[in-house]
C-alpha cells in the first residue's frame, strides 16, 4: 500500500550531503493513535515519517495532504489540542499533543476561551518580515551598520528555502558561489543570531500605518505588536498549482514541500516519483530525490526545451533519468493517495496528442511549475502592484533602491519578483541600505557595488526575464513620478 510504510522506515539515517541530528523521542496522538516523533519535527513531517499522508479532509470528505509545506497554502489544516485550523506543516510536535484531522474548515468551540496572555509590545528601528536569504542578508547588512533589526519568520526554522538547498550555489565568491545553500543559511544565521532578535514561528497577520508601521504577529499563542520606523518585506513566494484530475490527492506535492520533507527533516517523501517542470527547481529537486534514495521515473516539461541550466539536466540524464520535453501530466490516479500518473505528448498548441498517453506507477508527483510572489503584506499597506509576467505575476512596484510606493516600506527577494537566492541576498542588502538611508545614514558607495553585483548575476540569457521585469517596474515608477 503506498500510503503506509513499516516502522518509521521513511526516516533517512544516511544522506550524501546532509546530516539529520534528531531531537528527543516523543509521542503525540493523531486521531487518537499514538505516533512516535522527534523533537523539532513538524506535525506533517512526523506523520509522513509514520507513513501517514492524509492529514485532513475537505468538507465533502476528500483526503488532503501537504502541498507547500511552508505555511502558505492551507492544505494541511488540523485541529491541535482543540484549536482548529492549525497549519500542520509549520507546527512543531510536542509530547502528548492531540492532533485531529478535520472535515472541512474547523469550527471554534463557543466555550473556548483564549489563554488571555497579554500582547508583547516591541519596538525596532527596522523590522524585517521573512528570514530567508533576502531577510537574513538585510539583517546582516543592518547589523554591520550598527542597527539591530527585529526579524520575523513564520517557519519554525529560519533560513527560508536556503535550508533545503543541498546544491552548491552559482554566482561568484562574493555571493557564496560553490557553497551549498543549507551552509549559506547556517553562515548567515550564525552571523546574525547573537545580535538580531529573530522570532521564528511568528506569523505576521497584518501591517498598519501607525507611527511608522505597526506589525501584528501571532507567535506561540501570543500576539506581538511591533512598532517599526522602517519595514523590509521579504516574504518569498509560493508554489504554483496545476490543473489536472486528481491534483488534490495526497502525494501530489509542490517540489519545495518535497525538499522540506527530505532535506530539512530527513524523511523520504515517497518511493517512485515524477517531476513536472524542467526549470531549475524541477531539475534540482529531481536530483535531490535521487540523493534521498527515491527512484525518479522522469521529468516532464510541456515546453519544447528544458527551462533550467543544462548542467542540472545533465546530472539527471547521466544517472538514467529521462527528461520528456513536449510532455505534460494528464491526470493523477488513486483512491486515497496518488498511485499512478498519466503523461502524454503535446502538440504545437500544447494540447495532449491522443494515443500518446502513458501510465506510470508511482506514489509521488512533484510540481515545479513556477512560483508566485507572496505579496499580501505590502498590498495591505497600500503599495501599488503591477502584473509583470517576467517576475512571476503581481509584484509590488519598487524602485532600484527596493522601496515600494509606500515610503519606508521596502521589498526584497522573491516577493519583489521571482529570482535566485543569490540575487535575493543582494536585494536584501539593497533594501537594508535604503532603510539605513531612511534612518539618515549615507550608503551611496556601498549601494553602487551591490547594483554592479546584481547586474553581473542577471547578465546572460538566463537573467533576461528578471532583467526585463525589473526594467518594466522602473519605467512604471518613472511614469508615476511624472504622470
Amino acid at each position, binding site marked *: 500500500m503506498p500510503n503506509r510504510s513499516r516502522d518509521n522506515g521513511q526516516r533517512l539515517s544516511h544522506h550524501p550531503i546532509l546530516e539529520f541530528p534528531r531531537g528527543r523521542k516523543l509521542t503525540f496522538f493523531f486521531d487518537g493513535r499514538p505516533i512516535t516523533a522527534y523533537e523539532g519535527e513538524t506535525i506533517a513531517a512526523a506523520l509522513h515519517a509514520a507513513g501517514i499522508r492524509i492529514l485532513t479532509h475537505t468538507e465533502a470528505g476528500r483526503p488532503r495532504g501537504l502541498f507547500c509545506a511552508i505555511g502558505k497554502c492551507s492544505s494541511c489544516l488540523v485541529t491541535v489540542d482543540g484549536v482548529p485550523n492549525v497549519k500542520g506543516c509549520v507546527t512543531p510536535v510536542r509530547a502528548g499533543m492531540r492532533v485531529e484531522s478535520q472535515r472541512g474548515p474547523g469550527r471554534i468551540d463557543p466555550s473556548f476561551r483564549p489563554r488571555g496572555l497579554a500582547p508583547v509590545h516591541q519596538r525596532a528601528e527596522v523590522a524585517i518580515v521573512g528570514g530567508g536569504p533576502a531577510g537574513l542578508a538585510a539583517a546582516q547588512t543592518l547589523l554591520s551598520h550598527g542597527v539591530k533589526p527585529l526579524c520575523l519568520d513564520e517557519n519554525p526554522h529560519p533560513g527560508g528555502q536556503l535550508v533545503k538547498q543541498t546544491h552548491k550555489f552559482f554566482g561568484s565568491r562574493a555571493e557564496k558561489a560553490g557553497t551549498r545553500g543549507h551552509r549559506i543559511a547556517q553562515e548567515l544565521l550564525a552571523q546574525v543570531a547573537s545580535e538580531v532578535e529573530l522570532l521564528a514561528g511568528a506569523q505576521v497577520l497584518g501591517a498598519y500605518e501607525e507611527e511608522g508601521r505597526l506589525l501584528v504577529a501571532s507567535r506561540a499563542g501570543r500576539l506581538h505588536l511591533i512598532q517599526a520606523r522602517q519595514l523590509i518585506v521579504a516574504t518569498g513566494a509560493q508554489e504554483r498549482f496545476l490543473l489536472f484530475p486528481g491534483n488534490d490527492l495526497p502525494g501530489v506535492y509542490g517540489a519545495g514541500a518535497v525538499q522540506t520533507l527530505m532535506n530539512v527533516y530527513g524523511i523520504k517523501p515517497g518511493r517512485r516519483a515524477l517531476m513536472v517542470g524542467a526549470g531549475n527547481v524541477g531539475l534540482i529537486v529531481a536530483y535531490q530525490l535521487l540523493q534521498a534514495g527515491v527512484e525518479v521515473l522522469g521529468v516532464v516539461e510541456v515546453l519544447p526545451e528544458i527551462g533550467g541550466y543544462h*548542467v542540472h539536466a*545533465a546530472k539527471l540524464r547521466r*544517472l538514467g533519468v529521462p527528461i520528456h520535453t513536449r510532455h505534460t501530466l494528464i491526470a493523477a490516479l488513486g483512491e486515497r493517495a496518488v498511485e499512478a500518473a498519466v503523461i502524454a505528448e503535446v502538440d504545437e498548441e500544447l494540447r495532449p496528442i491522443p494515443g500518446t498517453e502513458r501510465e506510470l506507477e508511482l506514489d509521488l508527483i512533484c510540481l515545479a511549475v513556477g512560483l508566485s510572489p507572496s505579496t499580501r503584506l505590502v498590498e495591505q499597506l497600500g503599495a501599488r502592484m503591477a502584473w509583470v509576467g517576467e517576475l512571476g505575476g503581481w509584484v509590488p512596484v519598487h524602485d532600484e533602491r527596493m522601496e515600494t510606493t509606500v515610503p519606508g516600506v521596502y521589498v526584497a527577494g522573491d516577493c519583489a519578483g521571482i529570482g535566485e537566492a543569490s540575487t535575493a541576498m543582494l536585494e536584501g542588502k539593497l533594501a537594508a541600505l535604503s532603510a539605513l538611508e531612511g534612518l539618515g545614514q549615507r550608503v551611496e558607495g556601498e549601494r553602487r557595488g551591490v547594483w554592479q553585483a546584481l547586474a553581473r548575476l542577471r547578465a546572460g540569457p538566463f537573467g533576461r526575464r528578471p532583467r526585463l521585469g525589473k526594467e518594466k517596474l522602473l519605467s512604471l515608477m518613472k511614469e508615476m513620478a511624472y504622470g
Partner: protein
Amino acid sequence: MASFRRTGVLSLAELAGQLPPLERLRKGPCAAIECVEEIPCNPCEEACPAGAISVGEEITSVPRLDFQRCTGCGACLAVCPGLAIFLLDLSGDRPRLTVPYELLPVPQPGEEVELLSRAGEAVGRGKVVRARRAGTTWLLTLELPSEGLLWEARGVRRGK
C-alpha cells in the same frame, strides 16, 4: 535550438573545443569542462591553483581552460555547482576518468561499477581505483576498458 536544450545531453560535436586534445591527455590528467551555457557562475576560475581556467569579469561567460596549464589536480571538480567537470587521463596503461559523485553508498577502490553515457545508457564497466572526498562531494577515479569510453562515459551506477 541546440539539441541539448531539448534533451539535456551534449553531443561530442557540441563539446568540440571543451575537451582536451589527445596529446595533452597522454602526458597526464586534464580537466574537461562540459559547461557550454552562459550562466552566472565562476567558482572554477577561483579554485584553480594553476590559473588555467578563465571566466573573466562577465561571470556569465563560458569558462575557458588552458589545457597546457591544467595540472589535473581536480580542485575545479570539487567546487563546480553543476558537477560539470571531469578529469581525463591517458598517461597510464588504462584510460582513467574522474567524476564527481554525490550519491550513497559511495563505490570504493576495487569495486566494479557500471558506466553510463551522458544520456544514461549503460556503455560498459569500469573499476574504481581512487575515491577521494572533497567536502561532501566525492571524486571517483575509474579505470576504463577502452579509450572510446573516456569520451562517452560520464555517469556511474553501482552493482549490476
